[in-house]
């Protein structure tokens, strides 16, 4: 039986190669894009996690605190706990290297303890020199990867920066246990504290627990014993944090790939539908010969499954190729910046590959389902009648179904995320797409009605055809609707996002110049004396100091960024909402939207921030916009922070110039004052340009996916019109008998193609606008926790729509060329 099905049905695919190849390509692309996203992120996360796990060594738990670190007295207390067998203190520094682009991660470790907990961090001195060599100040040991990237050998000097001070460290050996590809250095912890002005400070303590002690018990008990802002966690928690940060981005890309696959399913639908219409007589004959209805159904579904399977297999192969290409071109985070310094490689993912293969088959079967139902519902006698192959593709207006989907979409926008993923938001997108497809047949009549005003014969014929056979538009246009909706929604969302980011950047960068010793995570900083010297520089009117730190508000949540800066009562901040705050007894803070969402905070709420090992209490005065920190930030008035922490260091300094002062001259004076190698001076325009470049790189992948989806949508028009043109060859032959020229038939096809595209584009644009609203107001809010102002790129959308209509007209015209090449005589012959 299977052999019969394969011979009768699947073999028919070989007879329609063009349509088959295009459907196959669509499924392949959908599967390839979706799986590639999984492979890329899976490999990046694996590599990142592998590095973290290897560097965690045999530690059972890690005590971690704010980025600035915590008091090293805590280490002594922890080490004395009965649950702890071994404790190893670590001071982790991201060292700025003056004169070099790259930074170097340096682990300051206790050389006597590290071997028991983190043996892979154990340094080995050069030429068999004693272990105690490492205890000497200024000695640095490099991993093989660091040695290679920095091009340094034993005996060389490496200059590191702390604050604005440069210190030379002597390369004295290696770290043989360092995992391959991990570039870092190790030095004695006391020496590191001294070199980097972090006396008495640790950033981490690695723990090995006593025999029989359960890790979960310690996690629970230590939480109460540790000071505010310091927490204990499993070593691989960092992987989960990174995974959590990139998850929303990953899910978004996966959904985009899903829409590409959906468009592919529409394409399978259109080719299968046209195929069963054209094969009506053949199928009726098979039924008349005794083939059961169910067998015909199975055979037609098998055709879809075969397309899906082949497309899926090709997609799985292509996904691995795409992943390799992405690693080579944009890196493991697809340009989004989640996994910097990670160099993953492509690995075969059997589980994900199987899932995507199944999705490919599902797309094929789903696409073939309705056509198969249509074919099996036909009465065989009717199908055997001569002339039945000119059947019009009917489709009823389904306004009620469309309306129901719209209501369901609105309802799906109401609930919050599930596990941080806006599941209901995506459901709303699916409902909107369904509403658009349901609305297609009804929209045909509405949108084709202006043609009634034209007395031109081609316009009349095209209008008559489309209104009498709206199914033709549904079949050809469904893919266009899906792809246009995707492209328009992404264009509106990305356009609005970019506009809002640009606006935000101009608000957060009001100064004329920005001075810093390094990025906030690295070892450079400005001390009060340096700030005073800059403020006293000729041409400087005012300086705006900013200090950054990261705080852990509770054990479960991701660290939030603390920004201490002059707030001018909120006027200096990109405030989204503010309100009267009754509590005058506590200092005020401003929180970002992500902070408000993730920590469920609102204006007037009280907030405890662990500053300098103590909880300091604030009241929330307002919510600000922040597109830089997805996990949330809190902005504290600089004077309050200094009073509470005693920390007077500065990371970034905004410099406002006096009237008439020259920006370049002032920058030069500052460089001369502080030293050219140890400060970075940027103009707001440069920072803005770099930020927007990063933004564009992040969305590059989404642009590519949109282009693919639109291409698949155009395939839909092309295959539909190719098939329709063939099935309508008699009609065209008759029209040529009546005096229409070949080119008139071509124009007729182009007109029908462009009308189909107009209907698809108009419905797709409306759906895209609605999806954009869901993306902006629901999905982005729930995924990334940031709001944006709607700024649809109307010109670009109109240009895109017109281009698509023209391309669709061309596709229809070119696809119909084969049918038009035939002789008008042969076309009308009954016995041909």
């Amino acid at each position, binding site marked *: 039986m299977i052999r019969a099905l394969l011979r009768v049905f699947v073999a028919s695919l070989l007879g329609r190669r063009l349509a088959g190849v295009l459907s196959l390509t669509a499924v392949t692309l959908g599967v390839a894009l979706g799986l590639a996203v999984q492979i890329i992120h899976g490999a990046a996360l694996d590599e990142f996690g592998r590095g973290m796990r290897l560097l965690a060594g045999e530690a059972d738990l890690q005590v971690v605190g704010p980025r600035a670190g915590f008091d090293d007295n805590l280490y002594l207390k922890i080490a004395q706990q009965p649950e702890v067998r071994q404790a190893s203190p670590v001071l982790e520094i991201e060292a700025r290297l003056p004169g070099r682009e790259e930074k170097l991660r340096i682990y300051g470790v206790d050389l006597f303890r590290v071997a028991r907990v983190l043996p892979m961090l154990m340094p080995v001195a050069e030429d068999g020199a004693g272990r105690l060599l490492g205890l000497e100040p200024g000695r640095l040991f490099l991993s093989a990867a660091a040695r290679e990237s920095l091009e340094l050998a034993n005996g060389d000097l490496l200059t590191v920066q702390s604050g604005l001070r440069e210190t030379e460290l002597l390369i004295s050996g290696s770290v043989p246990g360092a995992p391959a590809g991990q570039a870092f250095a190790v030095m004695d912890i006391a020496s590191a504290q001294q070199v980097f002005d972090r006396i008495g400070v640790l950033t981490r303590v690695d723990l090995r627990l006593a025999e029989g002690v359960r890790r979960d018990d310690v996690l629970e008990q230590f939480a109460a014993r540790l000071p505010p802002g310091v927490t204990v966690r499993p070593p691989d928690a960092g992987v989960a944090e990174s995974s959590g940060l990139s998850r929303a981005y990953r899910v978004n890309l996966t959904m985009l790939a899903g829409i590409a696959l959906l468009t592919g399913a529409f394409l399978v639908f259109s080719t299968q539908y046209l195929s069963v219409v054209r094969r009506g007589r053949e199928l009726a004959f098979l039924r008349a010969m005794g083939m059961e209805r169910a067998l015909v159904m199975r055979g037609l579904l098998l055709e879809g499954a075969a397309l899906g399977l082949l497309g899926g297999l090709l997609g799985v192969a292509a996904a691995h190729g795409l992943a390799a290409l992405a690693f080579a071109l944009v890196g493991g985070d697809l340009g989004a910046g989640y996994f910097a310094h990670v160099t993953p490689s492509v690995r075969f993912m059997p589980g994900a590959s199987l899932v995507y293969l199944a999705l490919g088959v599902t797309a094929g079967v789903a696409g073939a389902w309705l056509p198969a139902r249509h074919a099996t519902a036909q009465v065989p006698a009717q199908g055997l009648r*001569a*002339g039945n192959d*000119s*059947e*019009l593709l009917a489709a009823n207006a389904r306004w009620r179904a469309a309306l129901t989907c719209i209501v369901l979409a609105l309802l799906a926008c109401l609930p919050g995320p599930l596990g941080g993923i806006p599941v209901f938001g995506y459901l709303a997108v699916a409902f909107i797409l369904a509403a658009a497809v349901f609305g297609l047949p009804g929209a045909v009549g509405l949108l084709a009605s202006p043609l009634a005003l034209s*007395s031109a*014969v081609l316009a*009349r*014929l095209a209008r*008559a*055809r489309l*209104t*009498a*056979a709206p199914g033709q538009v549904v079949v050809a246009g469904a893919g266009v609707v899906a792809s246009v909706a995707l492209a328009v929604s992404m264009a509106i969302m990305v356009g609005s996002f970019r506009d809002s980011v640009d606006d935000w950047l101009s608000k957060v960068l009001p100064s004329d110049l920005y001075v810093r010793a390094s990025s906030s995570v690295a070892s450079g900083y400005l001390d009060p004396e340096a700030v005073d010297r800059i403020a006293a520089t000729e041409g400087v009117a005012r300086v705006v100091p900013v200090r950054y730190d990261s705080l852990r508000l509770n054990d479960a949540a991701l660290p939030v960024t603390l920004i201490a800066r002059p707030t001018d009562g909120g006027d200096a901040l990109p405030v989204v909402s503010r309100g009267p705050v009754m509590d005058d007894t506590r200092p005020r803070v401003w929180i970002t939207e992500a902070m408000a969402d993730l920590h469920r905070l609102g204006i007037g709420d009280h907030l405890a921030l662990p500053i300098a090992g103590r909880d300091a209490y604030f009241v929330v005065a307002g919510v600000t916009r922040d597109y830089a920190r997805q996990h949330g930030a809190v902005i504290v008035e600089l004077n309050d922070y200094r009073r509470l922490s005693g920390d007077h260091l500065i990371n970034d300094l905004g410099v406002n110039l006096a009237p008439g002062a020259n920006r370049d001259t002032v920058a030069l004076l500052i460089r001369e004052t502080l030293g050219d190698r140890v400060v970075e001076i940027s103009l707001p325009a440069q920072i803005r340009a770099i930020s927007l470049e990063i933004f564009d790189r992040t969305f590059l992948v989404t642009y590519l996916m949109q282009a693919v989806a639109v291409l698949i949508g155009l395939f839909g028009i092309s295959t539909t019109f190719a098939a329709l043109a063939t099935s309508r060859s*008699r*009609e065209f*032959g*008759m029209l*040529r*008998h*009546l*005096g*229409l*020229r*070949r080119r008139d038939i071509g124009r007729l096809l182009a007109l029908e193609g462009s009308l189909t595209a107009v209907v698809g584009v108009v419905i797709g644009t409306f759906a895209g606008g609605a999806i954009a609203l869901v993306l902006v107001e629901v999905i982005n809010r729930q995924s990334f926790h940031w709001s944006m102002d709607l700024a649809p790129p109307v010109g670009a959308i109109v240009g895109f729509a017109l281009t698509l209509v023209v391309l669709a007209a061309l596709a229809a015209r070119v696809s119909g060329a084969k049918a038009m090449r035939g*002789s*008008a*005589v042969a076309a*009308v*012959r*009954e016995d041909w």
Partner: protein
Amino acid sequence: MLLLHSLCKRFRPDAEPLFSGVSLAIKPGECVAIMGESGVGKSTLLNCIAGLETSDGGRIELEGQRIDMLDDDAWALVRRKRYGFVFQAFHILPHLNLADNVALPLWLLDIDTATARARAQKMLDAVGLGGRALDAPNKLSGGELQRVAIARALVHRPAVVLADEPTGNLDPDRAGEVLALLIDTVREVGAVGILVTHSRLAAAQTDRVLQLRRDGLHSFDVTGA
């Protein structure tokens, strides 16, 4: 007047002609049937007359103008203005209602909508389908569809009406009725009618019956054995 003078057709330059020496003069209002064995080239001759295939010799004149030398576009214009066609398989567009199907040749001639509608209605009245102008073609029987095709073939008052097996898809009763309608209407509008058929019964209703052979057209008595 339609004049064919020594028309010849071969499918390859080095092949024997399918037919040659085909000469014929048909005056307006006259309806001629062309018969012949299968494969002799009846439909090909019709196609040559319509400019849908090129002849390999001879001349075609319509109302004193030589038309066999025209290019493809010019032939299209001639067909649009001067020819009407009736096909065996009707070829009624399923997405147009009956009135629009009949008005189609008028649309091609840029005749204004109101006039086209009125003339289509008149033709539908003439073929007995006046009350069904707005019906969709799928509601009609084969005989009714061929009536619509006749209305469409004549609505623009062509000089020549070519019908290739117009009753081939109809039962004998319907065939006689439709054929009578076609011939009467051709005569009424003063067109030249050429009917290709295998049916002696159908041919007998025309003014003249000719048999196509390789060497040309010959008179044929359909009443003979």
